[in-house]
Each structure stands twice: as C-alpha cells, then as structure tokens.
C-alpha cells in the first residue's frame, strides 16, 4: 500500500535529498586514485586534440581565404584593354583618374623637360667630382616637389 502524502514526510524527503547531495549516499560511486589519473589523461588528450584541430581549422581558413579574395583573371575589370598598347620604356597602365586631371599636358611636359635638364646637370656635376653628397642632393624640380 502506497504511503500517504503528508507535509512532514515530504519535508523529510527533501532534507534527505539535500543531505545525499551534500555528503553522498552510501551507494555513490567514489572513483579510485588510478581511475582519477586515467580520467585526467583522457581529458588532457581531448583538450590537446581540440586545440590542434582549432589551429588546423584556422590555418585552412587562412589559406583558402587568400584564394577566395583574389578574383579570377576573367572577372577583373579589364583596364588594360582600354589603354593604348604598351610601348618601349612605357609598359605600364595609367589610372583613368590621372588622365582626367585638369593640369594641362603641355605644362606637365615642360615640367618633365625641366626635370630631365636639372637631373642631367646634377649627374654631370657628379661625374665631374664624384661624391655621395652630389648623388643624393635634393632637386628643385617642380615635378617631384
């Protein structure tokens, strides 16, 4: 016959449960020292494995990321096709923004001309009396200042 539910009995049962948690029951499993060491080893191996797996995953992501960020050649905007063909000593692409600057090309060419003359003169004076100072002195050319 089932025991009848009374508040006092219920209270005793709850207190008993707390005590069981606090001190353990007689049938509770108490691992031995040897088993404890095995468990520690097992957990250590799992932790190291997880750590190594995480490192490998990060390395894999880093390697594949650089491949993904570089678009295939066919998808790149073909700037070079809109430019004149490469010529002797001038094999480079020109940014469209550079070609749209309002500075007159004649003035730019004059600056280049002046720059070459100044550099030529500097090089000549270096050849006349070679010294590192003459080789590295600053130019007054507007092209580079």
């Amino acid at each position, binding site marked *: 016959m089932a025991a009848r539910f009374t508040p006092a009995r219920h209270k005793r049962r709850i207190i008993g449960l707390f005590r069981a948690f606090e001190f353990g029951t007689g049938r509770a499993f108490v691992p031995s020292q040897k088993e404890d060491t095995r468990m520690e080893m097992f957990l250590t191996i799992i932790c190291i494995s997880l750590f190594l797996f995480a490192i490998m995953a990060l390395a894999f992501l880093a390697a594949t990321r650089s491949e993904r960020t570089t678009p295939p050649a066919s998808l790149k905007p073909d700037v070079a096709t809109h430019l004149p063909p490469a010529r002797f000593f*001038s094999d*480079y692409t*020109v940014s469209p923004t550079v*070609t749209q600057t309002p500075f007159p*090309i004649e003035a730019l060419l004059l600056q280049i001309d002046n720059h*070459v003359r100044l550099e030529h003169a500097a090089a000549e004076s270096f050849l006349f009396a070679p010294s590192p100072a003459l*080789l590295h002195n600053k*130019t007054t050319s507007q092209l580079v200042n």
Partner: protein
Amino acid sequence: MLHQQPELFSGLPADQIEQALARGSRVSLTSGAQLFALGTAADRIFIIERGRIRLTLPMQVRGKEEDVLVEEMGPGQTIGWSALIPPYRFTLKATASVDTEMIALPRVVLQELFSTKPAVGCAVNQNVAAIIGQRLQLFQAMWLREMQRMVELHCH
C-alpha cells in the same frame, strides 16, 4: 667649317679632321624636323655644326605617347653612334630644337677611312667609347637619383 673640334675626332691633328669631315655631307634641319626615329637603321653618324638636337624617348603621359627629353646635344657633339655599333639601330629619336646644321658621315665611308688610316680609326673608336661611357655614367647617376627619390617616397 666647325667652330670647335668635334668630340668624335678629339686628339687628331687638324688636317686629318679636315680630311675626315670632307668625306661627309652637310645636313640641314629646320626647327622641329626629325633627324631619325627610334628603331630605324643607323647608317650615318652626325656631328652638330650649329644648332641643337633633342634626343627623346616615347613615354606614356596621361595615356598618350609623348616624346620625353633624354638629352640635348649642341655644336661639336656627336649624334647617332649607333651607326658604328651593332646592331646599327637608333635607340632614341632625334629632333632639331632649332634650325640645325650637321655633317653626316656614313658608316661605309668611315670604315674605308679607318682601313686606310688605322690611327684615325683607333682615335675615333676611342672617342666613341668615351662618348658611350660618359652617357652610361651620366644615366647611371640619373637613375640612382631617381631610385633614391623613389625609396624616400616609399619610406615616408
């Protein structure tokens, strides 16, 4: 008649210079006229008598090909030494800055002169080597200065 001794015949006596120049032909260019183009066959060497010659290279400036000055030569200086050095192709473009007069010496004529007068040949070859060497040193220095600037730009 040249007002100053041409660098190509430096070290030679005046009579030999006269004899060599007499084998050439006079070339006159008006301002802006082209003497030779880059890549064309070089069969004559030129000595500037009067005026100035611009030596240029093509450069892309804002997407357009422009002739950019490399060197400017004046009276007494030699242009077109490529005519004496294989593969006998001009490596620059030459244009007259002002009205210019020159003496053109064909390679064939010079080679004949050198075979008959080896001393002239030796002197001319030495002078050509000096001209080329000077240009090399000059452009070496110019190149290093440009590199120096590039390095400074990248470091700042």
